C-alpha cells in the first residue's frame, strides 16, 4: 500500500478505541477502507485481496502520521503484522511501534521505489528482514540496508521492557529530582 500519508485515523477509526486490548484490535485495522457501510468487504482494498497471513506491510511516505493513538499499533500487531516498511514514518507512531515490538523499517526513497518494483515482479512471499544486520531484501536477490536507533534495536532483539530498564536508574532519577525540584519551587501548584 505505498500511498502517502496513511494516517492513524485510517489505520483504526477513533470509534473503536474504547475497546480493551485483550479483546483484540486486529478486526478494526483499516476498518473503513476494508468494509462498506453495510459491513461487506470492499474487494478492491489490498487487505481484502490477500490471505491474511502476511507479516510485513509496505506503506508510503509519512506512514502512521496524525493522532498519537497506540491503538494503530495494536491493530497492526493483532492483525498479524510484525514489520512496516516505508520511506518515512509519523514520529509518534514510530515510537509507539518500538514500544510494542512492531518493527518500523525506513528505506531510502530510491531503495523503497526499487523494493516496491521488485516486489511486484517477484512476489511477496520471499522477503526477509534481518534486524541484527539491519537489512531487508529477498531471500535470493537484492538487499537494502536500513537505519534503526541502537537502543530500540537492542530492546527489540532482547525483548526488554522500557519501564523495567528505566527503573534500574532509580537512584540517578531520584538524585536528579531532588536537585531539580529545589531549583524550581514554583513547579508544584499550591
Amino acid at each position, binding site marked *: 500500500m505505498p500511498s502517502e500519508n496513511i494516517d492513524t485515523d485510517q489505520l483504526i477509526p*477513533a470509534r473503536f478505541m474504547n475497546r480493551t486490548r485483550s479483546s483484540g484490535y486486529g478486526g478494526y485495522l483499516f476498518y473503513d477502507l476494508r468494509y462498506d457501510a453495510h459491513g461487506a468487504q470492499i474487494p478492491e482494498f489490498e487487505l481484502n485481496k490477500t490471505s491474511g497471513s502476511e507479516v510485513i506491510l509496505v506503506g508510503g511516505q509519512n506512514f502512521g502520521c496524525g493522532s498519537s493513538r497506540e491503538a494503530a499499533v495494536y491493530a497492526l500487531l493483532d492483525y498479524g503484522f510484525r514489520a512496516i516498511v516505508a520511506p518515512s514514518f*509519523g*514520529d509518534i507512531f514510530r515510537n509507539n511501534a518500538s514500544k510494542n515490538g512492531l518493527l518500523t523499517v525506513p528505506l531510502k526513497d530510491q531503495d523503497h521505489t526499487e523494493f516496491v518494483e521488485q516486489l511486484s515482479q517477484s512476489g511477496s512471499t520471499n522477503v526477509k528482514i534481518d534486524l541484527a544486520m539491519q537489512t531487508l531484501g529477498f531471500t535470493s536477490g537484492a538487499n537494502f540496508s536500513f537505519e534503526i536507533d541502537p537502543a530500540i534495536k537492542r530492546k527489540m532483539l532482547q525483548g526488554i521492557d522500557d*519501564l523495567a530498564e528505566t527503573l534500574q536508574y532509580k537512584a540517578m532519577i531520584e538524585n536528579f529530582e531532588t536537585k531539580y525540584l529545589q531549583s524550581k519551587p514554583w513547579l508544584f501548584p499550591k
Partner: protein
Amino acid sequence: MISSQTLVEKIWNNHRILNNEGMDLLFIDRHFVHEGSHHAFHKISASGREVRHPRLTFGVADHYAPTGVGKPDEAMSVMISRLRENTAQHRIDSFDLSDARHGIVHVTMPEQGLSLPGTTIVCGDSHTATHGAFGAFAFGIGASEVAHVLATQTLWQKPVEPMRITINGRLPFGTSAKDLALYVIAQIGTGGAAGYSVEYAGDTVARLSIEGRMTLCNMTIEMGARSGIIPPDDITFTWLKGRALAPVGADWDTAVAQWRDLKSDRNATFKKDLTIEASNVVPMVTWGTAPDQVAAVTACVPFDGADDAALRYMGLTAGQAITAMPIDQAFIGSCTNGRYSDLLEASRVLLDNQVKVPLLISPGSAEVARQAEANGLVDIFIQSGATWARSGCSLCVGMNGDRVKPGQRCASTSNRNFKGRQGKGSRTHLMSPAMVAAAAVAGCIVDVRQHAGYRRSGSVPS
C-alpha cells in the same frame, strides 16, 4: 564560552537525567491524562506500580465528553467513568464533566495556569504541541509512554533537530492564526518537519495573542514536527498571572525571573530555517484529505499535484473553484479553534444572520462557555440558528457520538481533514472560525472578507 543553544535545547538540557545509547532520559514537569489513557493505567496497575508524581499529573474527560448533540453509547460513558476511577485511585486531580474546570485538555490546562514556560509537558494526544505557545517543550506520546511517565515521571527521547520558522509582517484583514498555520503547512508539507522541533520567531508571532499562538503551535504536529514552541514574553506572563493553578507570590517572582532567560541564543543554529511573509496570507481552505492539501479560498482545486484518491474521496474535480462549494454542515470548536477569541470571531459573522446548514458550536472549555454566555455570544449563536453544545473534542474526532454522515461535507475549525476523521465517509474542509461561520450562513464555502457584517464589525487581526 558563548552559549549557542536553541530554546528547546536549553529546556532539554535542563531536564536531562542521563544519556544512554543516544537516548536521553528527560524529567517531565506536567503530564495530562484523558479517557484514552486507560491502556496506560491498566499497564501500571497490572505490574502493581504507583503513579510517581500525582501532583504533577492532571486529568480531564474530553475525547468522549457528550456535547448533548450526538448519541453517546454505553461504551463512551464507561470510558469517562474509567478515567474517574483511575485518577481517583492514584490521587490525581481530574476535571470531570461536572467540574467548573472541565474542557478540552489543550484548552483547559492552559486556562488553569498549568502550562508554564520552560517546562516539559506531555499528554497522550498529538496536539499537545499546543502548550508550546507558552514556551514549554510539549509533545504528544502514545499509551506505553503514558504508562512510563505515570510510573517514573520521565521519558526516553531521541534528540530532535531544530527548525525555525520566522514570520514577519501584518496578517491581513479576514485572516487569523489558523489561516497562517494552514499557509505554513502548505509550504512545508505534512511530513516536512518530521524529526524536527519547530521554533516560531518574527514580529508576527511576537504580536500574536496567546490564543493565536496556541492555534499555531497546535497545528505544528500537522507538519510532522515533534513540537512547536514560541519564546515566552510579557504577553505570556500577563496571560498566566493569577490563573488558578499558576505559581503565586514569591514563587511567581522566582518563576518569571527564570522564564525571562528562555530564548534561543543569538548564534544558535537551526538545521532548517524558513521565513514566511504574513502579509501574503489569505483565508485558507483544505480541499483534500491531508492538511497540506490546502488552497486560498479564491483559488481552485489544483491540477498540479492533486491527489486523485483524495479528490475521489472528497467528491471534487481538479480545477473546480473552492468558493461556492456547497456544504452540508459546519463545526466550530476543538483544541485548535475552540477558544473565546475564536467564538468571538464567529459571532461577528453570525450576528443578525441565519445559518443555512446545521452549525454545531462546542466551546473549548466550561470557562469559555461561561465567557461566551456572559458576553452575549451565545444569544447571537442561538438567534442565528446554530446549536450551542457542551464542551468536548466533539466533531473534531467523532468519538463521543457527534458525527458527520457519509458523503456529507463539513466546514470545520478542527485540525485534521483525514478520511473518516469526522465519521465514516465524512468530507472535511478545514478553515478559520470566521470562515466556517460564513460558510454556515451561505450554505457554501465563501470568502469571509466579502461578508458585509464581518466587514462592518471591523475585526482587526493580530
